[in-house]
């Protein structure tokens, strides 16, 4: 009796071809959704790392104000990116959006992705709980983490004198408008730079790092150096960060998070050969970029070590620069080529960092303009030399030096001009920089009313003169303050350290 029912049960349990297809599609969607979610979890380490890195590089008196910038970046970039940043990515791939009847809700996207634009509006069905769409939420989340990263790149350069609120305004502009506009143009399968010029920047050398670095340069020109950074003769002094170990650990956390960043730049197509696509819809593999990122760190550390003659800060920053230099072509570079190019990228970062600090007298506290800005665009340039001819984007336009230069010409003004303009506006409103008195005393006492190492005795702060001598910073900084402000003597003064 029972054995006679088995064929009946099997017949009932056996799915039809159509049901199997539905199940496979659902499984593929769940795999994609799960993958992106966990890349985001790993990418959080980038922000943990940036916070530790910058807090360690700050002097003790500016510890919490530095860390708070990184924390509140999340507070402001998340809503701004939800309300209009994601919409820019969905709708500005052609340059400017076109409105047509064939799109969802009247929001036309590029013809390659009809309706995607409408799905990115904050009031769309796909921007909330939706059983029919697993992917929009995690895609949004991955891009949001890229946005936080752009803010964090800028954050370190401005420490110890920028107002927290000014930084938050600028980071919202950078994270939710500037970088995502360039991503729509040149970091999407249907972007106008991609489909017309074959612009190729697979893991975002230029679109994230280069653009954030140049935006930062525009801000730094208005912000100015920290009090005491330069002698009367224009020679650069060095400030001692309060915790180098924290800085180095932060950089290592950033490196860990970069694996999530790299993975999030790919797209899984689990039912279609070869299973992975880059951001342009061209085939690659996770293994290909795993080779390049790991070798890129190795080459970057090597180049940073030798170019800086063994400086620990630049050795680790060189690792970051090395990876950034090879990111644009990470989907196609051979590991040996990546090794050589990453060594050169780290050297470019060290040399340009020193040039910016000592010749152009731009006080970039963590070398962000050099490591991210200069090396980012250097990486885009390298693709024109070493990956020319590779089909890119939905139109399969071959990447070329011309296309890469076109991208650079579009991104440089897009990045630099808003950074300069909006920081100039804030400066004119006296909202960009903290008062000099507060800068000398330390931002933590003004912002939070406390010292964040209460159990440790305050030791005199030191500063490194251009000739390498370490001296007590209080008289140096006070002298620089008096010169800057032209104040007349009004009584016996004491050092900022003594008062605090």
């Amino acid at each position, binding site marked *: 009796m029972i054995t006679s029912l088995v064929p009946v049960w099997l017949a009932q349990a056996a799915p039809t071809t159509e049901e199997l297809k539905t199940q496979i599609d659902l499984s593929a969607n769940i795999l994609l959704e799960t993958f992106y979610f966990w890349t985001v979890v790993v990418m959080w380490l980038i922000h943990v790392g940036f916070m530790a890195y910058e807090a360690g590089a700050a002097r003790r008196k500016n510890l919490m104000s530095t860390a708070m910038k990184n924390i*509140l970046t999340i*507070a*402001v970039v998340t*809503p*701004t990116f*939800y*309300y209009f940043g994601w919409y820019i990515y969905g709708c500005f791939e052609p340059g400017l959006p076109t409105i047509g009847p064939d799109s969802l*809700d009247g929001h036309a996207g590029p013809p390659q992705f009809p309706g995607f634009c409408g799905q990115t509006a*904050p*009031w*769309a*069905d*796909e*921007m*909330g*709980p*939706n*059983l*029919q*769409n697993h992917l929009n939420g995690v895609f949004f989340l991955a891009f949001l983490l890229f946005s936080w990263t752009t803010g964090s790149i800028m954050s370190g350069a401005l420490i110890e004198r920028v*107002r*927290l*609120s000014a930084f*938050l*305004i600028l980071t*919202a502009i950078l994270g939710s408008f500037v970088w995502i506009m360039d991503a729509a143009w040149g970091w999407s399968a249907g972007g106008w730079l991609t489909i017309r010029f074959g612009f190729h920047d697979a893991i975002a050398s230029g679109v994230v790092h280069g653009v954030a670095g140049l935006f930062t340069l525009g801000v730094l020109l208005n912000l100015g150096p920290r009090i005491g950074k330069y002698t009367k003769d224009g020679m650069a002094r060095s400030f001692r960060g309060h915790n180098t170990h924290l800085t180095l650990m932060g950089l290592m956390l950033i490196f860990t998070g970069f694996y999530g960043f790299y993975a999030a730049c790919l797209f899984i197509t689990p039912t279609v050969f070869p299973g992975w696509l880059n951001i342009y819809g061209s085939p690659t593999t996770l293994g290909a970029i795993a080779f390049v990122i790991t070798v890129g760190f190795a080459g970057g550390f090597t180049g940073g070590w030798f170019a800086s003659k063994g400086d620990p800060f630049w050795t680790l920053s060189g690792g970051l620069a090395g990876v950034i230099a090879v990111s644009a072509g990470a989907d196609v570079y051979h590991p040996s080529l990546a090794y050589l190019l990453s060594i050169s990228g780290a050297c470019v970062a060290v040399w340009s960092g020193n040039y910016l600090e000592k010749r152009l007298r731009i006080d970039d506290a963590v070398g962000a303009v050099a490591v991210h800005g200069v090396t980012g665009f250097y990486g885009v340039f390298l693709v024109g030399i070493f990956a020319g001819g590779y089909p890119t984007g939905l139109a399969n336009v071959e990447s070329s030096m011309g296309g890469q230069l076109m991208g650079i010409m579009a991104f440089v003004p897009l990045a630099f001009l808003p950074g300069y303009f909006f920081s100039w506006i804030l400066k004119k409103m006296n*909202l960009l920089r*903290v*008062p000099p*008195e*507060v800068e*000398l*005393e330390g931002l933590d*006492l*003004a*912002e939070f009313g406390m010292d964040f190492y209460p159990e440790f005795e305050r030791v005199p702060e030191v500063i490194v003169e251009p000739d390498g001598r370490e001296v007590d910073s209080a008289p140096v900084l*006070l002298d620089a*303050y*008096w010169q800057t402000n032209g*104040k*007349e*003597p*009004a*009584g*016996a*003064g*004491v050092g*900022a350290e003594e*008062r605090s």
Partner: protein
Amino acid sequence: MFDAFPYDEWGEDIAGFWTFGPGNSTGTYILTALGIAAMLIAFVWFVRLENQKLAHQQATLRASGALDRPPTAP
């Protein structure tokens, strides 16, 4: 097979099922407008609150005379 949710009754509505939803409805438009308003107000408060703190601390420091230039010898 493990879910008792009445999919047949909900039909297509399952695509957008949040509070005051679905998308492109009056409830969602209002929520969006309120969210954007909260975001803008937060920016203004970030600026004002910090400005007050910095101005107070600057005034305190100036009043203390701690950063004044010491008198030069006659």
